[in-house]
C-alpha cells in the first residue's frame, strides 16, 4: 500500500530526528558515568582532554531545571524610582519627593509601569506642574521647555538603559565568580531573572547580585553631639504606664526602643541590635521625629558585619553615626585587590585611587587626623578607622571582612562597575542538590510506573490493539524527549508531572478510536469497515478535545514562570506527540496487520 509506505517513512523520519537529538543526552550521560568512575587525577586529565567534546555535547542535552539539579533562581528588580530621583539633577522638592513616595506605595498592588505611576502621581498633585523643573539633559534634548510626556518617555528610556546596563554588570560579576552557564534574562520592564545551577555558596551570590557597588568615603558624626542625640532619642520613647493595683495606681516605665536596642554612645557607635531586630529598629528611627533629634546632616547606618554574637549565637549589628555628605565615591578607585592585613593577617581589599581621587583623599585625611572616616558600601559601614596621618598616595583599604572569598567578591563588584540604581531581590528560590536528586528519582519512578500501569490496562482491556497502542505510547515518550531536546527546553519536576499526565491522556485518542471501532462492529460492520469508520468518526472528537487542552497549555506557558513553564511545555509537546503516535503509528500497524496480513485483530 502506498499510504502505508508514506506513513512508515514519516514515522522513521521522526524517529531518526528524535534519535539524533536524544543521542547527545545519552552520550553525555555515558560520559558523566565514565567520569564518575575516574580517580581525581585521571578525572582532571580526562576533563581537560575532552573539554571541547563535552562542551559541545552539553550544548545539546535536555537541560534539567534548577528544581532538579539544584541551584539558585533569583529575580532582581531595578529600583526605578531611586533612578528617577538620581536623574532629578535640578534639585528636588517636596512635590517630587511625595510623588515618588506615592508611586512607591502603589507599586505593590499595581501592574502599571512604575515610571507612569510616578508621572501620574505628580500630575495628580498639580495638573499644571512641569517635570522639566527637575530634569535636564542636554544630550537627549531634555530642556526647560520639554513637556511632561517627553520627560515620561525619556525616563522610561533611561530606565531601560539602566536595566540593560545592570544586566551587563551582573553578567560580568557572575562570569568572574565562575558559574557554569548562567542564565541572565530581562523580565518585564525592570526585572532581571538570574539562574545559576549548582551553587554551593548562595550567600556570596546574593551579595554579588544585589550589591550596587556604591562605595563612599564619609566623615563620621561628632562624638559629643551623637551621645546627646542618643539620650534624647531614648527619652522620646519613654512611656509611663499606669496600672490599677487595688486602690492605688502604680506607675511603671516602659521603653519600646530599649527592648530591641542596646545604646552605646561611645566613639561613633550609636548602639547595637540583634540581627532579627534591626528591621524594628529601622522602623523606629526612620521617623521624622527621631531624625529631628539627630545632629544635623548625620545619618545612622548599620555595620555590614555583626560586631559580636550574643547568646544563642544571634549576631549583633552596630549602628554608626556618619555624615550625610559624601566626600569621595568609588569612581576614583582605579585598582583593587584582595590582600591580607600585614599585622593581624585578616582579609581586606586594598584600593588605589586615580590622581584626582588621591589629591582629594590626601586633603580629607589631612584635615581629619585622629577622627574616624567611614567606608560605606551600599549603605552599610564596612569599616571606620581612625585616621593616623595624611594619606597622599591615594591608598585605602576595606577591612572587617570575614574571609578572603568575601574580599575577592568585593573586588569583583568594585571593578565590574557601579549599578545605575540599586537592585533588590524580589524573589529567590534555592534548591539543594540532594533534594534535586530526590526529585529526579521520584519523577523517574513515576514515569516508569505510570507507563507500566497504563500499558497493562490497555492490553487487558483492548488485547492486541491495546498492545499496539502501548507501542505507540512508548514511541510517544521518545518523541516528547526528542522535542524537548530539539527545542532546548528545560525539564522541571512539574515538567515530568506533565509527561506522566500525558501518559494517562495519550491513550485517550486510541481509546476514542478503539471504542468507536467496537461500536461500529457492534452495529454490524465488518472489521475492515469498522476500522475505517472508527478512525474517521473519532477524528473530530480527538481533534477538538486535544486542541482545547493544547490551548490551555499555551496560556499556561505565556503566563507561567519557571517550573510552570516547564509543565506547559511538556504538556503541549505531549499532546502533539501523542496525536501523532496515536493517529499515525497505530493506524499504520493496524492497517498492516488487517489489510496486508489478514490477521485477526482483537479489540477486546
Amino acid at each position, binding site marked *: 500500500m502506498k499510504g502505508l509506505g508514506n506513513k512508515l517513512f514519516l514515522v522513521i523520519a521522526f524517529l531518526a530526528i528524535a534519535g539524533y537529538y536524544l543521542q547527545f543526552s545519552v552520550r553525555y550521560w555515558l560520559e558523566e558515568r565514565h567520569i564518575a568512575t575516574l580517580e581525581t587525577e585521571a578525572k582532571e586529565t580526562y576533563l581537560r582532554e575532552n573539554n571541547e567534546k563535552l562542551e559541545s555535547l552539553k550544548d545539546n542535552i535536555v537541560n534539567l531545571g534548577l528544581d532538579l539539579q539544584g541551584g539558585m533562581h533569583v529575580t532582581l*528588580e531595578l529600583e526605578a524610582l531611586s533612578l528617577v530621583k538620581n536623574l532629578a539633577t535640578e534639585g528636588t522638592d517636596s512635590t517630587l519627593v511625595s510623588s515618588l513616595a506615592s508611586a512607591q506605595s502603589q*507599586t*505593590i*498592588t499595581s501592574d502599571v509601569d512604575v515610571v507612569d505611576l510616578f508621572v501620574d502621581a505628580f500630575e495628580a498633585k498639580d495638573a499644571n506642574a512641569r517635570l522639566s523643573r527637575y530634569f535636564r539633559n542636554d544630550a537627549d534634548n531634555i530642556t526647560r521647555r520639554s513637556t511632561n510626556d517627553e520627560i515620561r518617555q525619556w525616563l522610561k528610556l533611561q530606565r531601560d538603559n539602566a536595566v540593560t546596563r545592570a544586566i551587563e554588570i551582573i553578567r560580568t560579576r557572575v562570569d568572574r565568580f565562575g558559574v557554569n552557564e548562567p542564565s541572565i534574562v530581562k523580565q518585564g520592564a525592570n526585572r532581571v531573572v538570574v539562574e545559576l545551577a549548582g551553587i554551593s555558596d*548562595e*550567600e556570596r551570590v*546574593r551579595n554579588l547580585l544585589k550589591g550596587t557597588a556604591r562605595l563612599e568615603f564619609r566623615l563620621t558624626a561628632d562624638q559629643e553631639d551623637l551621645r546627646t542625640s542618643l539620650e534624647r532619642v531614648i527619652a522620646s520613647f519613654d512611656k509611663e504606664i499606669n496600672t490599677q493595683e487595688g486602690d492605688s495606681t502604680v506607675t511603671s516605665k516602659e521603653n519600646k526602643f530599649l527592648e530591641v536596642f542596646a545604646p552605646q554612645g561611645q566613639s561613633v557607635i550609636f548602639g547595637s541590635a*540583634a*540581627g*532579627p*531586630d534591626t528591621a524594628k529598629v529601622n522602623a523606629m528611627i526612620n521617623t521624622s521625629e527621631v531624625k529631628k533629634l539627630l545632629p544635623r546632616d548625620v545619618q545612622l547606618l548599620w555595620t555590614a558585619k555583626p560586631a559580636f554574637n550574643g547568646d544563642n*549565637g*544571634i549576631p549583633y549589628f552596630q549602628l554608626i553615626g556618619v555624615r550625610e555628605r559624601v566626600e569621595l565615591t568609588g569612581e576614583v578607585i582605579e585598582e583593587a585587590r584582595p590582600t591580607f592585613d600585614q599585622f593581624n593577617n585578616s582579609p581586606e581589599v586594598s584600593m588605589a585611587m586615580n590622581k584626582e581621587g588621591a589629591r582629594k583623599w590626601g586633603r580629607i585625611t589631612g584635615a581629619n587626623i585622629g577622627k574616624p572616616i567611614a567606608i560605606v558600601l551600599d549603605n552599610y559601614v564596612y569599616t571606620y578607622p581612625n585616621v593616623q596621618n595624611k594619606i597622599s598616595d591615594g591608598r585605602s583599604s576595606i577591612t572587617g571582612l570575614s574571609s578572603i572569598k568575601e574580599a575577592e567578591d568585593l573586588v569583583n563588584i568594585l571593578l565590574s562597575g557601579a549599578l545605575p540604581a540599586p537592585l533588590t*531581590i*524580589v*524573589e*529567590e*528560590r*534555592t*534548591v539543594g542538590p*540532594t*533534594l534535586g536528586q530526590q*526529585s529526579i528519582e*521520584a*519523577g523517574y519512578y*513515576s514515569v516508569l*510506573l*505510570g507507563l507500566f*500501569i*497504563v500499558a497493562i*490496562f*490497555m492490553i487487558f*482491556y483492548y488485547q492486541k490493539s491495546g498492545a499496539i497502542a502501548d507501542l505507540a505510547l512508548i514511541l510517544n515518550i521518545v518523541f516528547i524527549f526528542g522535542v524537548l531536546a530539539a527545542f532546548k527546553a528545560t525539564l522541571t*519536576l*512539574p515538567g515530568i*508531572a506533565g509527561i*506522566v*499526565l500525558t501518559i*494517562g*491522556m495519550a*491513550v*485517550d485518542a486510541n*481509546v*476514542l478510536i478503539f471504542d468507536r471501532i*467496537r461500536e461500529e462492529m457492534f452495529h454490524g460492520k465488518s472489521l475492515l469497515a469498522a476500522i475505517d469508520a472508527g478512525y474517521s*468518526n473519532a477524528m473530530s472528537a480527538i481533534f*477538538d*478535545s486535544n*486542541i*482545547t487542552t493544547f*490551548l*490551555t497549555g499555551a*496560556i*499556561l506557558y505565556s*503566563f*507561567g*514562570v519557571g517550573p*510552570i513553564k516547564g*509543565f506547559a511545555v511538556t*504538556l503541549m509537546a505531549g499532546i502533539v506527540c501523542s496525536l501523532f503516535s496515536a493517529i499515525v503509528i497505530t493506524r499504520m500497524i493496524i492497517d498492516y496487520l488487517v489489510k496486508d496480513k489478514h490477521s485477526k485483530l482483537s479489540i477486546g
Partner: protein
Amino acid sequence: MRIFETANYNFISKRNVGYIISGTLIALSILGIIFKGGLQYGIDFKGGKEFVIEFKSDVVVGDIRSALTETFKSQPEVKNYGSNNTVLIRTDVDQDVNTLKTAINQTLSTKFPDNPGSIEKTDNVTARFSEDLKWSALQAIVASIFTIFFYILIRFRNWRFSAGAVLALMHDVVITLGLFTILNDILPFSLTIDQTIIAAFLTIVGYSLNDTVVVFDRIRENATVHKSMEYSAMINRSINDTLSRTVITSGTTLFVVAVLFIFGGEVLKGFSFALIMGILIGTYSSIFVASSVVVDLAKNKTNHAKS
C-alpha cells in the same frame, strides 16, 4: 471485555439530581472558603520566606518552633515536610535571607547539637512579587475560560455549548478550590494554593473540557444522524455512547495521577491531589452538568440550532 457496551442511562431526565448535588457541593465549597477566611494561599501568592530543613534523624516540630520563635522574635510556621526528619519553616520576618539562614543554622546547632540539619530549599517571595504572581494567575485563568468559550463557539457554532462547557469547568474549579481550602490543615500535606496548583487547575480545565468536548462532538454527530429524535433524548444518547470512553480515559489518567501522588515526592503532593480531585469532579461534570446545561438552555427552542 467492554464496559457500558449497551449503556442507556437516563442522565438527562434525572439532571435535577445532578443540579442538586452540584449546587450543594458549590455552596459547601463557597461556605468553606468563607468560613476559612478566604483562599489559603501558599508562599507564591502570600509572600514570605520558607526553608526546608532536613535533619539527620527525626525531630519534634514543636521543639523547632519554640527554638526559632526565640531567634526570630516571632512565631514561625513549622510543619513536617514529607517525612519526620524534614521540616518546612515559614516566616514573615523582614530580614535579609543571609542573616536569617545564619540565625537558623546557629540556633539549630546550639539547640540540637546531636541532630545536624541542613537547609535544602529556600524560597523568598516579596509582597510585591507575590502580587504580580497572583495577578498573572488570575489572568491565565480568565484567559483560558475566554479562549475555551470562543473555541467551542467557533467549532460548534452554538453558544449553548460554550456556556455548558464553561459552566462545567467553573463548577470543577470552584469545587476543587473548596476542597483544597477545607482540607488544608486536615490532611497531612500542604494544600495551600500556589503556582503549581494554578497549573493543576488549568490542567483540570483542559482535561474536564476534553471529556465535555467528546460528548459535544457526539451530540453534533447524532444531531445529523438521529434527526427525528427529541433533543434531550438525543443528548442523552450521546452521553451514553461516549460513556465507555469517558470512564476509561478518566481511569487511565487517574492511575497515573495517583502514581504521581504516591511517588512524585512532597513537591508534587498538592499538585497531584488537585488533579485527582479535578479529574473525578471533571468526569462527573462532563456527564451530569455540561450537557444538562445545553438541554436547559435549548428548552425553549423546539428546533435546535443548526449544529
